[in-house]
């Protein structure tokens, strides 16, 4: 019995005040055993489990951080916070279908449905948590310069467009599907570029990242990963809003013209 319900159910006339008091007393007496039961539960060894996505997602947050802030300098716990929700959801679906390979991720996601994965994607996409600077990869200056060139200007001689031509002018990603590249460790970036080269990561269509990664040489992968991981976070790290992508595709797009298919 709920005291507030009893109060609402009673007429407001003064003559019934006594009745209200009586009802309240009865309600209190009736609820006493329940209150005792709650006390017993609270005194058991663990605190109450919060009914939140953060609590439910322990399988995610133990590597990716409580708020998806990522594990600094780690290859296996990249930042999720603030990445486009569409991108996060798509990656989860790729892990399920095996288009993106990672034993731990494939196992954890296997039994989830689209609805729950969307909620998890939204949760991590909406987390606003400060960026931390990954430790700089110890690479020679010439390699970093090569990385900077690839990231900001690309290399037409090998058909590699600049990272910022797709991943946002500040490399913070573009809604809804393109991830930001800042705040990720050099080892993660390297391993993902190599995954694109080794067919451990695939997209249905377009397969542009696969094409680009396969045009890069091993030292290009190292160079661009090292340079990206050494970049400080911008003041506004939100992904850019969706662009109007129209056909014909822009000249830099590897999917237009020659070599569009892997």
């Amino acid at each position, binding site marked *: 019995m709920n005291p507030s319900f009893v109060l609402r159910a009673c007429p407001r006339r003064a003559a019934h005040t006594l009745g209200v008091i009586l009802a309240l007393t009865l309600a209190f007496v009736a609820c006493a055993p329940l209150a005792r039961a709650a006390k017993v539960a609270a005194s*058991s*060894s*663990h605190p109450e*489990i919060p009914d939140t*996505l953060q*609590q*439910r*997602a*322990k*399988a*995610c*947050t*133990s*590597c990716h951080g409580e708020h998806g802030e990522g594990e600094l300098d780690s290859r*296996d716990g990249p930042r999720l916070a603030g990445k486009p929700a569409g991108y996060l959801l798509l990656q989860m679906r790729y892990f*399920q*279908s*095996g*288009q993106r390979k990672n*034993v*731990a991720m*494939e*196992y*954890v996601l*296997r*039994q*989830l*449905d689209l*609805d*729950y994965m969307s*909620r998890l994607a939204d949760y991590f996409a909406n987390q606003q948590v400060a960026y931390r600077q990954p430790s700089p990869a110890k690479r020679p200056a010439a390699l970093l310069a090569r990385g900077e060139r690839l990231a900001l200007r690309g290399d037409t001689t090998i058909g590699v467009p600049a990272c910022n031509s797709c991943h946002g002018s500040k490399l913070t990603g573009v809604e809804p599907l393109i991830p930001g590249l800042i705040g990720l460790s050099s080892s993660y970036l390297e391993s993902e570029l190599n995954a694109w080269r080794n067919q451990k990561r695939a997209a249905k269509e377009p397969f542009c990242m696969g094409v680009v990664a396969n045009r890069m040489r091993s030292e290009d992968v190292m160079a661009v990963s090292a340079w990206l991981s050494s970049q400080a976070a911008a003041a506004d790290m939100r992904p850019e809003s969706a662009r109007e992508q129209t056909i014909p595709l822009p000249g830099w797009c590897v999917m237009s013209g020659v070599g569009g298919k892997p």
Partner: protein
Amino acid sequence: MKRSLRILLTLGLLVCVAGLGLYVSHDARTPPSPAQRDADAAALHDPARIARGQYLATLGDCAACHTAQGGVRYAGGRSLGTPFGDVPAPNLTPDSDTGLGRWTFEDFWQALHNGRGRQGQLLYPVFSYTSFTKVTRADALAIFAYLKSLPPTKREPSPLGLKFPYNVRSSLLAWRTLYFKPGVFERDTNQSAAWNRGAYLVQGLGHCNECHAPRNALGAMDKHGQLTGGQIPQMHWYAPDLSTRAGGGLEGWNTQDIVDLLKRGQSAKGAAFGPMAEVVHNSTQYMNDADLSAVATYLQALPPRNAHGSPAAHVVASNHASGESIYARQCTQCHGSDGEGVADIYPPLNGNTSVNEPTGINAIRSVLLGGFPPVTTGNPQPYSMPPFARQLTDDEIAAVVSYTRQSWSNRAAAVNPDQVSNLRHAPTD
């Protein structure tokens, strides 16, 4: 040495003779009468039968094997690992070249009931006809009608990954002589209708024994070991004993516990994970209430078991104290200091069959892999467990797993770091 060689040779000869006998007596199949064939063909278009077939195909979890990761449902392609090599699951959609398009019901019945392919060839028992042989003809017809109603998907079969001599199909003659007898489910008139329905589902269509029974070196299920639990070949998981009585793997599970696990993926006694999570996700969550309760009735009637090892043999691991401190740091928050869990959220570890199963594989892998129980209608946003593979060393995982296996009422054998190390890179599929 000499003696064992002689026994082996004699056995081999016996097997060959028996196999030959079977070949002669069983190869010819009697084709159904034209009238029967027409009736079967007409029956395939009945919408009610198709709907029934969808339910039955779901209960049989056909899609689990006959769907590749990320592939079209029932279009085959998943590679099924066996100790003898890999066998790709065929396409069950009605594509005329690569699927069941040209199959008649009689072809399907021969496969399901007799383990024979369309050309009469012997099928590898990774296809669980050892259980499906108990499926009734009416149910088989409904399943076939449903499969025939699917949109056809073209998918070329993958090559067979079996090594010699297992790739010679006639080698199966001997195996079948020893381990397979086509049969039907026989009702036990001393038991209730619910018990019989449960037995039919568990032993036949649900093919629970394919995982939950021990297997011998030739991959055959132990006839006397029905539902007593066993290590799943090539999967690095242990499917526990399913008896709910004294000494059983599910000791103390009531009807609600069984129904909850199958329907919601989680009960007051434990959560489904690993291959069972997949079974719940794809199959048992869709079981109707009558069938769920029938399965519970049948499982609860399984006999008590002799507990594994005598209590006297139980030796507390020397790293119990270090396991306890890891437990306090990493596990208490969710599973409680007494392994009691949190109702509907985190499974208890005290008395948990997966903690106590004989090998320790399940507990080790659960700690390594973490993960979510299956998403079901009854539990749409389950809580999860962190994977500890990167946080804890082999020694630490062995210590904490041994601690949980030897605390509270748990009295299982300790595990060692080598086991953890071996399971670290075990495939998850």
